[in-house]
């Protein structure tokens, strides 16, 4: 029984990181209709920036802030400089370009910081059954999700963001700067992705550290529904729990394959994720 409770608590804590990554994927999917495969790479850059700055200043929290800022700027830059000119021509090409970006950034990080692992500290102590670090992960992701909801729902900026995402033409006619909103959306998403990286990175970081995290993040987003931020958060926690149970009872090698089983089962019943509503379609 204690084993089960431990697995549940661990699952929730790692699920927080998956939820954050899923949230960042969903924000970009809502805005640009593409899955951003470069998301883990952007998080990687942010985390390595945090690593360097923490080493220089000796303060974890300055590094943490740096990671979020780097994430924000990197996401906005990528949208403006690389994605926008290509998204105009074809959506598949834009997705492939995010793949290319993933390769470039992962390789680039390896060239600068090396392929070997670096030690990377937690925000708080990670000792114990439900450690302060675990609590921080859950609280941080919960706070971000709540903040995001409030901004999107109740501020004029949030209204513009939603308008630009759901009806770009009409939004443009009413004076919303759609391009700016897209850039802002990518920036916010990458900031949340950087947070996911800061939570999922420790104890060691290496250029491939987020591959598995990304797989679980995309699983969470797909299970929750790519169109639904709440679905992403719930999906993240569910995947965290599921993977924790599978690793604990069946063996960690099977965790990723069981994620596939979960995706197939959930999507066979609800093809657009658990929280989706059926949509009408015009031919």
């Amino acid at each position, binding site marked *: 029984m204690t084993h089960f409770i431990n697995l549940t608590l661990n699952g929730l804590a790692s699920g927080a990181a998956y939820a954050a990554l899923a949230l960042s994927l969903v924000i970009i999917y809502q805005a640009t209709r593409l899955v951003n495969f470069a998301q883990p790479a952007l998080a990687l850059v942010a985390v390595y920036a945090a690593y360097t700055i923490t080493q220089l200043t000796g303060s974890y929290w300055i590094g943490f802030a740096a990671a979020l800022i780097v994430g924000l700027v990197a996401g906005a830059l990528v949208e403006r400089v690389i994605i926008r000119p290509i998204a105009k021509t074809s959506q598949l*090409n834009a997705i492939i370009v995010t793949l290319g970006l993933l390769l470039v950034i992962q390789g680039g990080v390896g*060239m600068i910081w090396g392929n070997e692992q670096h030690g990377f500290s937690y925000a708080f102590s990670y000792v114990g059954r439900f450690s302060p670090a675990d609590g921080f992960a859950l609280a941080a992701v919960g706070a971000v999700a709540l903040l995001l909801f409030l901004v999107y729902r109740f501020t004029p900026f949030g209204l513009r963001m939603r308008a630009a995402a759901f009806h770009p033409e009409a939004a443009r006619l009413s004076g919303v700067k759609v391009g700016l909103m897209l850039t802002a959306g990518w920036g916010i998403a990458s900031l949340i992705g950087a947070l996911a990286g800061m939570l999922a990175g420790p104890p060691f970081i290496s250029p491939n550290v987020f591959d598995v995290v990304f797989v679980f993040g995309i699983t969470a987003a797909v299970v929750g529904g790519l169109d639904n931020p709440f679905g992403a958060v719930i999906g993240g926690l569910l995947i965290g729990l599921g993977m924790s149970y599978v690793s604990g009872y069946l063996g960690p090698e099977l965790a990723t394959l069981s994620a596939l089983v979960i995706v197939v089962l959930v999507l066979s019943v609800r093809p657009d994720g658990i929280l989706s509503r059926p949509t009408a379609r015009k031919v």
Partner: protein
Amino acid sequence: MSQPTAQREKRTAPTEAAAVPRPSRWAVLPLPVRHLVLAALGLAVVTGLLFVTGDLTALRIAAIGYTMLAIAGLQLLVGGSGQVSLGHGAFMMIGAYAMALLVLHQPMLPISANLGIIVVVSIVAGLAVGAATARLHGPYLAGATLILAVGLPGLAHRFHDLLGGSNGLNIRTAGVPPFLQGLVSTSEWRALVVWTTVVIGLAVLATISSGRLGRRMRAIRDDETAAAMAGVPVGKTKVVAFVIASTAGGLAGGLQAYVLGTVTPSSFTLVLSLTLLAALVMGGIGSLWGALWAAIAIVYLQIWATDLARAMDLSRDAENNLPIVFFGVVLILVLRFWPLGVHGALQSLRARLRARNS
């Protein structure tokens, strides 16, 4: 996820017809015959290339062959039915391990029998995955296949005794048959075996893609609901497309194991699957020529980047990572300036030259 436009649909037919002096007689031949003739021509060209180049190039030519077969299968799926699969490397892994296990446990079987068994194994695997994911569309399918690509190598660690863990399996396949000894080297013989299989596979893919099944797949790609209304069995066609693609992938993986003589889980990472898809789009998604450019790009960009890193005398970290960065940069630049890929760019260049001449 994507709704590729009709202009993507550039088939190889005009190029093929141009290769033969009398198109009228050529055009009356049935399609499978035409494709087989072209396959034989292609094999002849490769054989010629093998004789004028050395052993090292033979291995590279073989690598281009199996990579092209894998990409051509993916092309039928992505360019044909519009299903974006990020798990193509997983099927290569299935084929490669099938080949290794067959050679280890049934050493007396000839290579052709092994390849036949691999086709069956790949069909079964493709059916299982294709049927499970038939209801998924767009990014959801991409996500599910992505997980397959990341998760499958874990099996090699889980079943350590059978699949050899992270060291993988090493195999020793038969070399040159006695009657050709002294005439061709082992690498050349392997390249020939690979390319014979590849051209047959390509001929089959080309025939499928220009036949009724190909038409149905493109109807689904352009509008699933409209295709269903017109009587196209959407689910079945999608599964069949998936099975064909995974068979090509599995066969390519088997050939890779045959050429390299070793199979490890680390050679079938997510990066492989992503590279295959990325190279396909870079080469040009609507045509088998695109698959050729893509395969050449995968094999040679890697080699050039490694040479470049050696020449620049970089540190080990930089040297190891340069190929992947190089590939990514080329990919982004190609898509930025030639949205239809290398093949699209070549076609528009040819059209411009023709306009100038006439």
